C-alpha cells in the first residue's frame, strides 16, 4: 500500500458516488456535477494505479490532461444545451413529459424543408 494507491481507492469511491448521483439525480446540472465527480474519480484511478510504486508516470498524467480538456468541452456543451432547453421548455430535468407544443395536428411544411 502506497499513498498513490490510497488515491486510487479514493478514485474508486468517487466513481461510485458519482455514478449514484448520475443515475439518481434528476436535475440536469446536478447530473453534470455528478459526471464531473465521476470523471475525477476515473482520473485518480488512472494515475494512482499506474504510480503505485511511488514513481511518477508521465503517460497517464498526459492522458488525464487530455481527459480533463475533453471533460470540460463536454461539460460546457452540456451547459449550453441545458440552459437553452430550460429557456424553451421551463424544465431542468428530463423526467417530465416532453414539451407539449409538439404533435400539432396541422400539417405544415416545415420551414426547414426547401421548396
Amino acid at each position, binding site marked *: 500500500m502506497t499513498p498513490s494507491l490510497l488515491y486510487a481507492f479514493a478514485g474508486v469511491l468517487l466513481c461510485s458516488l458519482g455514478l449514484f448521483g448520475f443515475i439518481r439525480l434528476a436535475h440536469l446540472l446536478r447530473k453534470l456535477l455528478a459526471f464531473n465527480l465521476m470523471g475525477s474519480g476515473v482520473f485518480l484511478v488512472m494515475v494512482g494505479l499506474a504510480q503505485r510504486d511511488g514513481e511518477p508516470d508521465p503517460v497517464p498524467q498526459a492522458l488525464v490532461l487530455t481527459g480533463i480538456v475533453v471533460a470540460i468541452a463536454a461539460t460546457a456543451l452540456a451547459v449550453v444545451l441545458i440552459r437553452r432547453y430550460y429557456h424553451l421548455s421551463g424544465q431542468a430535468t428530463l423526467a417530465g413529459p416532453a414539451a407539449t407544443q409538439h404533435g400539432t395536428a396541422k400539417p405544415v411544411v*416545415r420551414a426547414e424543408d426547401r421548396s
Partner: protein
Amino acid sequence: MIDWLVDGLLVLALLVTALAVLWSRSLFRAVVVFIAFGLLMTLAWVRLQAPDIALAEAAIGSGLTGVLLLDAARHLRDSRPGRHQAGERRGGQSE
C-alpha cells in the same frame, strides 16, 4: 507517518465534499462545494507528483467549470421561463 496523515485527511475531505456536492439542498451551494472539491483535487494532484494536472485542475476543473456552472445555476434558478413562451416556437414541428 505525517505523510499518511496528510493523504488520509485529503482523501477524507475529497469524499466529504463529493457527498456534499451531491446532497446539498440548494443547487448554488452544490456548485460552490464543487469548486472547493476542485481545489482539493488540485492538492491531490500535487501529492501524486502531477503538477501539470494540478495546474490544469486549478484553472480548468475548478476555475472555468466552476464559473460556467455557477452562472448556469444562478440562471436556472432565477429566470422564469413562462415569460418567454410567446414567440419561441418557430417553424412548426420537428420531424
